[in-house]
């Protein structure tokens, strides 16, 4: 199993969710995050004093999927999340040892 984590722009979140739903992803975990990469931050001005605010708001979403589905999920997210500009975000995949469904005790693929 794989954990796919994506950090994307907040305004692309709805499109990504719809695309993942269409691709058959049944659930995910979403958090409001903040961070920066090549995009850097933005400038704010208070009484003439300029501040570089380096952290910008982001959406972080996490999906655990079968090994076979990981590539599809990644391409679905990158397809939906990009206008093709700096700051669109990143997607990464890491292996997952085990998963347990709390309600039934099912494990691994059966728990997804």
């Amino acid at each position: 199993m794989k954990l796919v984590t994506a950090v994307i722009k907040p305004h692309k979140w709805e499109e990504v969710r719809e695309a993942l739903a269409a691709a058959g992803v049944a659930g995910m975990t979403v958090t409001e995050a903040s961070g920066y990469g090549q995009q850097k931050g933005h400038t704010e001005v208070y009484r003439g004093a300029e501040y570089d605010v380096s952290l910008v708001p982001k959406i972080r979403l996490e999906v655990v999927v079968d090994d076979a589905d990981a590539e599809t999920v990644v391409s679905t997210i990158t397809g939906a999340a990009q206008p093709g500009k700096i700051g669109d975000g990143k997607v990464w995949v890491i292996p997952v040892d085990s998963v347990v469904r709390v309600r039934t005790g099912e494990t691994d693929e059966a728990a997804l």
Partner: protein
Amino acid sequence: MNTGDTAWVLASAALVLLMTPGLAFFYGGMTRSKSVLNMMMMSFAALAIIPILWVLFGYSFAFSPGGSGVLGGLERLGFDNVGVATAYGTIPEFVFAGFQLMFAILTVALISGAIADRARFTGWIAFIVIWATVVYFPVAHWVFDFGSDAGGGGWIATKLEAIDFAGGTAVHINAGAAGLALALVLGQRVGWKREPMRPHNLPFVLLGAGLLWFGWIGFNGGSALGANGVAGLALLNTGVATGSAIAGWLAYEFVKEKKGTSLGAASGAVAGLVAITPAAAALSPLGSVILGLIAGAVCAWAVSLKWKLGFDDSLDVVGVHLVGGLVGTLLIGLLASSNPGGVSVDGLFYGGNAELLGKQTLAAAAVLGYSFALTYLIGRLIDVTIGFRLDPEDEVTGIDQVEHLESAYEYAGGAGGTPFKTGV
């Protein structure tokens, strides 16, 4: 005594009272979330302490008959020799004393913006007691006490005869110079210029500016001490100058940044209110437009001085109150007009001579110099005795937790700083 005059000054006192909680919001919104309570508490401390001093000796030092021109007399200690039938002009003296009490509270509270995040609360309380006694009450006597037919009165009001309708010198230059002195005594905040110190709640700042504007109708309008045309002129000029100053400040921002900020709009409003305070009855409404535009643009520039000169006047008491007070007090020398009938002299631009400008300059310089020098000494005295500056570690933790055992908001970040990290 005149019931109409009395009713208006009573109402004005209530309006001016509201300015201090309004100021607490104006200043509180500009601090970081970890020090908003301390900032608001500095205003409430003034609300707590000044009334006590006022009854004991403050009113007497400012307004008692038998004064010297430099300090009021002693006949009103403990509000002795005053009853409900005692008149002050056309209104009861109790009404005048209540109205003027609100000015004393506000003036002290104004200073607190210069020392955000880092002043020990006990030091601030000691400061209120000493500063009001040594600086405000005498200066109020100089400027606001016009004496009686029997003589008396403060030297600026009755000897120099400079025009200060509602406190450009006694309130704003006074508080602004004191703010500068205290900012120097306490020094820069930990991380100043290096860490972001963004306002944590700009809606608070706009709310506070609105409350200040509302209350200022009583501050300036009530200073006519009567329900009459002068009060009307002052009220109108106050609105006109304030709106114009917002326009002036935002115009400056559009030239510099191509955008207009909400903090700029709120600051412009206060800059205009400050500048029109001494001039509210001395200008025509058209003159007030000019004064407002100038005050807004000049103060928008003046708030940058602290970065260049290196004094941490945290919320710009100098840039707004000292500079705005100077702009208003000095522009009277140019823009005063006897046409509407609020004053009987004209400024340079209205056919008058330079004498008025000279008087205005002298009054401004006297209050500025006296307030700065005395405040610096008082601040140092407090710092070396009971301690004025907060411990740096406590300052980083947050003064609300350390000095008041409270947090303003229940969310992550309240304990350790702003939720965003930035690099200036």
